[in-house]
Each structure stands twice: as structure tokens, then as C-alpha cells.
């Protein structure tokens, strides 16, 4: 299997098949990243398209010394930040769209008779709300680390920060989430 860096080099040389492999390999991760950060399905699709177009155009400028994931998520983070500066997000978007995708919330009948699944879903909902209250940089750092599983070094390169700054952001983000969620977590872990 060809490495991403090699595929991007081939893309720069005009190999459209190489580019297609990149899109198929990273499309879901990138689309999920945008869905979680911008929360709108349409905007996430537009940003995904824009990201891969930018990646295609900037392929000749890619230097393999930098990790491919850092290169790609740097573009993604900039696009998401720029997009969010332009718009204001309705807080209900996330839940509306989760329902559209088949992750329906429990109906009223189930709410009246809570069970384990309902509790788990409610905790997840509180977690999403807590995430949304974080500064954008912190949300991106959390998503890159926990969601996309990038290393601290890759996140630092993607966000244009030092590794120690990334460490610090992640600790503060987690402390803030816990402070938002503590009652729910107390319940779910029996603390």
C-alpha cells in the first residue's frame, strides 16, 4: 500500500488515481472532522470538497519532512476556523443532523422509563454540549487527538503551535469538560 506522502507526490505529477485513493482513504475522517466542528451537514460537505481541492492544488508544495496528516489537518483546521468566523451556529444543529443520520434520540416514551441506553445517550449529549462550549482551538485539539488520533507533534504542526502548548490545551480542555459535566459523570461512573 502506498504511503500518503507518495500518493501526494504522484498527485502533484498529475496522477488522478493517486488522488482518488487519498480521497477514499481520508474522506470519512475529514468529513467527520468537519461534521463535529461545524456541525452542519451541508457545510461539512462543502468544506470537505474545498479541503481536497486545496490539497490537490497544494500537492506540489508538500514537503515529505512534515507528516501528511499534519499537512492535511492544518488545511482542515484553517478552513473550519475561517468558516466558523463567517457564520453563527444554531445549537440544535448537531442533534437534528444526528437524527437525520439514523442516530435517533430516544422517544418520549423511553424518556419516561429511563434505561442504560438512554442514560448513555444523555451523557453523550452532555459531552457534546460541553465540547461545544470550548474555544474553537480546544475543540480542534480534542478532535485531532481523541477523534483522529494524531500525535502531539502532528497536532502541534497542524495547529501551528508548540508541543507543550498542545499538551496544555488538552489538559485545560479536559478540565473544562469535567467542570461542565461533573454531575453526569458522577452518575455514570458512580463517583
Amino acid at each position, binding site marked *: 500500500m502506498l504511503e500518503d506522502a507518495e500518493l501526494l507526490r504522484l498527485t502533484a505529477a*498529475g496522477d*488522478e488515481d493517486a*488522488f*482518488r485513493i487519498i*480521497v*477514499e482513504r481520508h*474522506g*470519512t475522517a*475529514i*468529513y*467527520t472532522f468537519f*461534521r*463535529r466542528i461545524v456541525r452542519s451537514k451541508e457545510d*461539512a*460537505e462543502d468544506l*470537505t*470538497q474545498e479541503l*481536497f*481541492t486545496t490539497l*490537490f*492544488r497544494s500537492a506540489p508544495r508538500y514537503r515529505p519532512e512534515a507528516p501528511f496528516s499534519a499537512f492535511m489537518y492544518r488545511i482542515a483546521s484553517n478552513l473550519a476556523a475561517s468558516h466558523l468566523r463567517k457564520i453563527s451556529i444554531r445549537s440544535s444543529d448537531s442533534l437534528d443532523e*444526528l437524527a437525520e*443520520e439514523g*442516530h435517533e434520540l430516544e422517544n418520549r416514551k423511553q424518556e419516561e422509563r429511563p434505561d442504560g441506553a438512554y442514560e*448513555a445517550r444523555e*451523557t*453523550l449529549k452532555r*459531552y*457534546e454540549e460541553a*465540547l461545544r462550549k470550548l474555544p474553537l482551538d480546544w475543540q480542534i485539539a*480534542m478532535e485531532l*487527538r*481523541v*477523534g483522529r488520533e494524531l*500525535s*502531539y507533534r502532528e497536532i502541534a504542526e497542524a495547529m501551528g503551535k508548540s508541543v507543550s502548548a498542545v*499538551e*496544555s490545551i*488538552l*489538559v485545560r480542555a*479536559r*478540565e473544562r*469538560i*469535567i467542570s461542565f*459535566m*461533573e454531575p453526569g*459523570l458522577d452518575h*455514570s*461512573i458512580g*463517583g
Partner: protein
Amino acid sequence: MDCNESRKLVSKEIDVELSSSEKERLEAHVASCKSCFMFRKYLQEISLLHRSMPEFPIREELVLSITDRASLLQGIGQRSWLGKLAVSAAAAAIFVLGLLIGNIVRERYMSAYFLAQTHSSEMESLEYLDEFPPGSISGLFLASGNEGGAME
């Protein structure tokens, strides 16, 4: 180790970025600190929550749309490369043509110019005045004036 440092290490531990020496120091602290022990449990919980969030598979139509757009850009890129080449060739041809025309014009009109310059030099030469030294012309006039006066 204080609790602030311990929390940083717990966060690194969750992210699998902890060195073995840091892990030993963390374990020693957590064993005796209930607050950090709970913090570690919370962090494990929220990491699980984050990982339980749904992934969103990209639609095949979107993949096609992205790759089609890339093909289009590739085509535009090639066309613009050919276009740039054509413009450069046309500019070079105009430049060479300009040089040729300039050369012809220079040869034709510069020779005429030099002829004109030579002629002009001749016209402007005052050598012919050598035949009339200073005072000779006024002397003639004075002489003719006196002759006229004498007639009167």
C-alpha cells in the same frame, strides 16, 4: 509532584504520550491523592465518550464530485500551461519582429539623417565669410552712402 503536574501527566497518559519515568511518578502520586485518582477516572470516561461519537461516512457522490473537480482543475492547469506557452511564443515572435523592423528603419532613416547632418553642417559653415573680413561690408555701404551724398 503537585496536583497540577499530576493532571498534566494524566492527560498525557490518556493520550499514550507518557514516558515510563513519568508513569512511575504519576502512579506514586495518584495512589495517595483521591482528587487525582478521580480526575484520571473522569478523563478515561470522557475519552470513551469522545470515541463513542458517531463517525460520518463520506457519500460516494461526494467522492466523485471531488475527483471530477480535480480532473477539471488538472485540465485547466494543462490548458493554462499551453496557453502560457503560446503567449510566450507570441511575445518572443513580436520581439524578434520588432528588432528586425527596428533594424530596417534604423538603416534607412539613419543614413538619411547622416546625409542631412552633413548638408546642414555645410550650410552652417561660416567659411564663406572669410572673403568678407570684418568691416568690409559696412565699408562698402559707407562708401556707397558717401557717393550718394556726393550726387546730391
